[in-house]
């Protein structure tokens, strides 16, 4: 997280220095994305205090970022503590892809999250996976920031 903060600050400073005339919203966009992956918290909900419910992906990618792995470790710790809880991982894609491919991509993203939870000791029979492809965006915008919020895997309590 610390690294993230520093990076964010450096980025802001650079952005500020280079584009003095940039408008306020543009700075907001820059600060909420890091190489195509959403880093903001606008849409994030919490499974428990300090346990974010979702991770974000780059365009066409299902690779977990450092921040995503951090979030998933927190989820795994919470799941270990609450051993009666089962979860559904909902994988999503942005609107900039064909429907059928996006269904597969959403499934791949949710499984990337599932695999990571499993390596941290969560049994596969506590985790189910569903892909919504591009069918359930959280942000209806047609811009890179909205798309980055929609490329996600959300961990939802199932019981």
């Amino acid at each position, binding site marked *: 997280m610390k690294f993230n903060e520093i990076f964010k600050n450096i980025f802001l400073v650079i952005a500020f220095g280079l584009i003095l005339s940039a408008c306020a919203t543009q700075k907001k966009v820059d600060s909420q994305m890091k190489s195509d992956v959403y880093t903001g918290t606008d849409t994030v909900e919490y499974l428990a205090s300090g346990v974010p419910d979702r991770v974000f992906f780059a365009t066409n990618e299902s690779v977990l970022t450092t921040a995503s792995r951090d979030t998933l470790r927190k989820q795994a710790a919470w799941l270990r503590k609450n051993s009666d809880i089962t979860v559904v991982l909902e994988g999503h894609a942005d609107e900039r892809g064909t429907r059928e491919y996006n*269904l597969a991509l959403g499934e791949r993203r949710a499984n990337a999250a599932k695999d990571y939870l499993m390596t941290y000791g969560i049994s596969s029979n506590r985790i189910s996976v569903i892909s919504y492809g591009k069918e359930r965006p959280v942000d209806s915008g047609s811009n890179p920031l909205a798309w980055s919020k929609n490329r996600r895997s959300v961990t939802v309590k199932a019981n």
Partner: protein
Amino acid sequence: MIVFRIFFILLLFSLNQAKALIEVDITRGNLNPLPVAVSPLFSEDETNKKINDKIRINNLGEEISIVIENNLRATGLFNPLDKKAFLQTPDLAHLKPRFEDWTLIKAQALITGKVKYDDNKLRVEFRLWDVLAAKEMIALAFTTVPTNWRRIGHIISDKIYERLTGEKGYFDTRIIYVAEEGPKTKRIKKLAIMDQDGANTKYLTLGNELVLTPRFNPTNQMVTYLSYFKNLPRVYLLDIETGIQEVVGDFPGMTFAPRFSPNGKKIIMSFAKDGNSDIYTMDLESRIVERITNHPSIDTSPSYSPDGEFITFNSDRSGFQQIYVMRKNGSDVKRISFGKGLYGTPVWSPRGDLIAFTKLHKGKFYIGVMRTDGTGERLLTENYYQEAPSWSPNGRVLIFYRETKTDEKGDGFSAKLWSIDLTGYNERKVYTETDGSDPSWSSLLSN
């Protein structure tokens, strides 16, 4: 669903075998559509009264001629002339046109007809005339129940199209699609079916669960589609007539991207497990499931060649979405798309020579076609977002859907059906009652 019965009762007079003068070339964009006069079909007052009593339509002959006119206009190949300019009355024109009168208004083809109602049966006859050659080209009559009148209009349109272009028409067909409503983040989607011209819309599901990608079987009685019933995304089979639905196969995970094989006996689809999607088939009779691809990449959007020997599909095994062709058993996999950008939703043309696709390049979406070996790529239309082409049964037109960009507030989203000629000309919005997506074109209903 109503079972339509149409009887061809007689071939009026002889079909003129002599070579007609009029010929419409449909292989290139037609910038000079053929001027045609569609005379209102004549009906006597008595017939009008009886039909009006039965189906509340005042002048059915005129209504049928409007259906024909709209069909012909929508092809982009014909230019139906304004009826106000017509000099000869419909009854006389149908008996024997005064060709000078029609030449005067620059009509090259003339369509006349007559409607009669007797014993609960509607009898419609029509004739197509070559105005310049002063000759009859077709004369046909049909009888049916009055409520079938639009179909008669479509069948007549198909006969005219076929006679003038030399190719089968596509008017007596339906479109199955996903009707959409509500905000972008909470879309409600229903299966809907309508006539090719947007009439007679029926909703096949209630919108309680998400449904996607419906496709007809070759006889247009069955539909395969993806439903999120009970939050389990699975491929379903729906009998349109009975409304009976069933899950296709017993897969421990999401099945999606279904299509029928050309003989209608199998469904081909993707099955996703542990982050990997592969292509499978299921025989609808024996229930035997076969795995066709086995690769750690995403393999989806399969579509058979019309002879059933080959399958085109979408895979990201090269690192990005591209189009591939393989034999029906999964052997001889070949990549065929090599242009710049990503390629998806390949669909084999009913003629077998082309594959239509969606392409994403530099933030724009294109609908295009290429030969089955990947050569001769042609992009037909560019837009902010569009995908999923489906072929008209004669392989001349593609229907697809297009979504709009939302504004700064995220409002203003819409999804509509569009069609475009294989030539890249004649792009048209297809009328739907609500928003629509994932269109699939039926085969000709009367064959």
